[in-house]
């Protein structure tokens, strides 16, 4: 069976959408000739030419503005903001213009743009090249936020994001770029945004996560099965819209929810999700908790950074402890 690397999935999704729709353009810093600092976009420049795939100045503010202006005037721009941390610079046009346009224009038009960034910790990049900016944008009506967990999901969600008429913030976890996995299954080549997925079925609890948290939760579920604990894993795929019905349906069967977030609990998506589950599904709940990161910036030193992250072992330990089962053997 053929396998697909995550970074190739990103490249293929872009290539297929550039091929399919002449209004799609792609730009960013070092994305064209160099093919991206994470080597996710090689050869697109050669194939589609400098009018449609181009390198830009280091001007995140202007790039976001240009993408917004291009999107409301007929193009479907995809642009890369190299590290998610730099998305603080791109915020104005995304939050104050792109997210508002559909509503305040009284639906005169849409804003079909996608902004892709590498996110997440574990790469020893330090506090300001390791953040996951999805939640910075989560409280903004009008924006969608997608965060794939595997190569197949990356391809399907990116194609879905490019075809979506709304502005999409697209997160790619750095530690997934080299992951290989099966290509999309038939019917999953394009994934509509806003639908969560049951990544593993189970009976005793529901572990909800997104992005890199999903493979971590799946690895934890393997360990937990050795202890006789059957964990269901829900891959949210998008943080906004948040697919609450799929989570509630899962919790109705398992009666426990653990939300695993690579990011601080305060203001994070996990606390919002668990709150919503309590509000809508309290009668189904025996337990609900969150595994998030400390309320500090992300550390650099390998020992500190590894301890900081909610990795598979930490997830399994947390579940075992919470359920009163001896911790899994290391």
């Amino acid at each position, binding site marked *: 069976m053929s396998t697909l690397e995550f970074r190739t999935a990103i490249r293929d999704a872009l290539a297929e959408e550039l091929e399919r729709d002449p209004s799609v353009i792609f730009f960013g810093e070092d994305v064209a000739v160099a093919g991206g600092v994470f080597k996710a976009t090689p050869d697109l420049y050669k194939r589609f030419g400098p009018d449609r795939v181009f390198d830009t100045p280091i001007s995140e503010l*202007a790039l976001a503005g240009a993408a917004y*202006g291009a999107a409301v005037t007929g193009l479907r721009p995809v642009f890369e903001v190299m590290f998610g941390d730099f998305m603080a610079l791109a915020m*104005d*046009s995304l939050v*104050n213009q792109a997210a508002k346009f559909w509503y305040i*224009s*009284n639906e005169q038009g849409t804003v079909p743009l996608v902004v892709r960034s590498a996110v997440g910790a574990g790469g020893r990049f330090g506090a300001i090249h390791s953040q996951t900016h999805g939640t910075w944008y989560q409280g903004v009506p009008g924006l969608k936020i997608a965060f794939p967990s595997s190569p197949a999901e990356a391809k399907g969600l990116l194609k879905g994001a490019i075809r979506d008429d709304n502005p999409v913030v697209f997160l790619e976890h750095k530690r997934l770029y080299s992951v290989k996995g099966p290509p999309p299954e038939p019917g999953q080549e394009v994934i509509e945004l806003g639908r969560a997925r049951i990544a593993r079925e189970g009976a005793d609890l529901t572990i909800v996560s997104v992005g890199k948290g999903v493979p971590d939760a799946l690895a934890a579920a393997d360990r937990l099965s050795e202890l006789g604990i059957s964990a269901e894993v829900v891959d949210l795929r998008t943080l906004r819209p948040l697919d609450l019905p799929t989570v509630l349906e899962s919790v109705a069967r398992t009666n426990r929810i653990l939300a695993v977030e690579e990011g601080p609990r305060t203001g994070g998506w996990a606390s919002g999700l668990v709150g919503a589950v309590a509000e809508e599904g309290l009668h189904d709940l025996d337990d609900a908790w969150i595994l998030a990161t400390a309320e500090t910036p992300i550390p650099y030193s390998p020992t500190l950074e590894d301890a900081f992250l909610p990795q598979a072992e930490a997830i399994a330990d947390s579940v075992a402890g919470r359920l009163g089962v001896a911790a899994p053997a290391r």
Partner: protein
Amino acid sequence: MARLHSPEQQDATGAFLEAYGRMLLIRQFEAAMHRLFLRGEVHGTTHLYAGQEAVAVGVCMTLEPSDWVAGTYRGHGHALAKGTEPEPLIAEMLGRATGVCGGRAGSMNVIDIEHGLVGCYGIVGGSIAAGLGAAMSAQREGRVAAAFFGDGATNQAYFHEGMNLAAVRSLPLLFVCENNLYAEFTPMAQATAGADIAGRAAAYGMPSAVVDGNDLWAVREAAAEAVGRARAGDGPTLLECRTYRHYGHSKSDPAPYRTKQEVEEWLERDPLRIARARLLEQGLAEQQIAAVEDTISAELDQAVERALAAPYPDPAADAATEFSS
């Protein structure tokens, strides 16, 4: 309202008479907004364009209906100059259901895609960002885009990043700076380094000009040259149009920081007075001009009346959705 046509398309004096009518429409529109604000019909705040009419109208005279414009929060003039109908624009100010944005946008954020107005921007410099993207679209289609902004915006990153990006991509974009000498309440000399704003273009290898922003003919001529360059694929231009706002920055600002003498000097150079005198010089009869003035006044009065009679949006019937599906 009739569309503005470039003078090449019809008798030049006739085009300027039409443009004068559009300037007068903006002036009277803003006077009406001032009155309606004091009556509590215009909500929140509003930023009036009176005094700067020659800039928007002079630039838009050189644009086609399919070209794009991005305006500022002082944007009523930009919208009217590009072709937005007065009645839905007034209704938008009044928060009525018949507003150009259904009452969802308000004074600072008007959008009118049908008439090529990408938007108006409450964040200083936002129009430059939108203009960049509109110019990317325009570049493919032989169209051009114009971004209006004030002198205050030239100290935003949007201005510098936008000038650079437009220059390296050779975008068909007019950077139209309306230098009204004050960044909100702060005089230009205290906030903006260097002798002039046009000079900043040299750093980006971009052509620029200082233009008398109260002279419709001067603005039109400079804009026509810039539009010609943009359409020919020769990239962006920065126009620094020196002008003056007749009201304060916003409705909460009586502008005590301006001297009486300065205000009087600028009122002497009122762009409408200059344009009217020029039309007479060019041989138009007093009655021809008066006829246009009467028509504009009557149209605006009717538009105000109809907008005031329009309903407010009904929250119970509001079918707003977060996303386009």
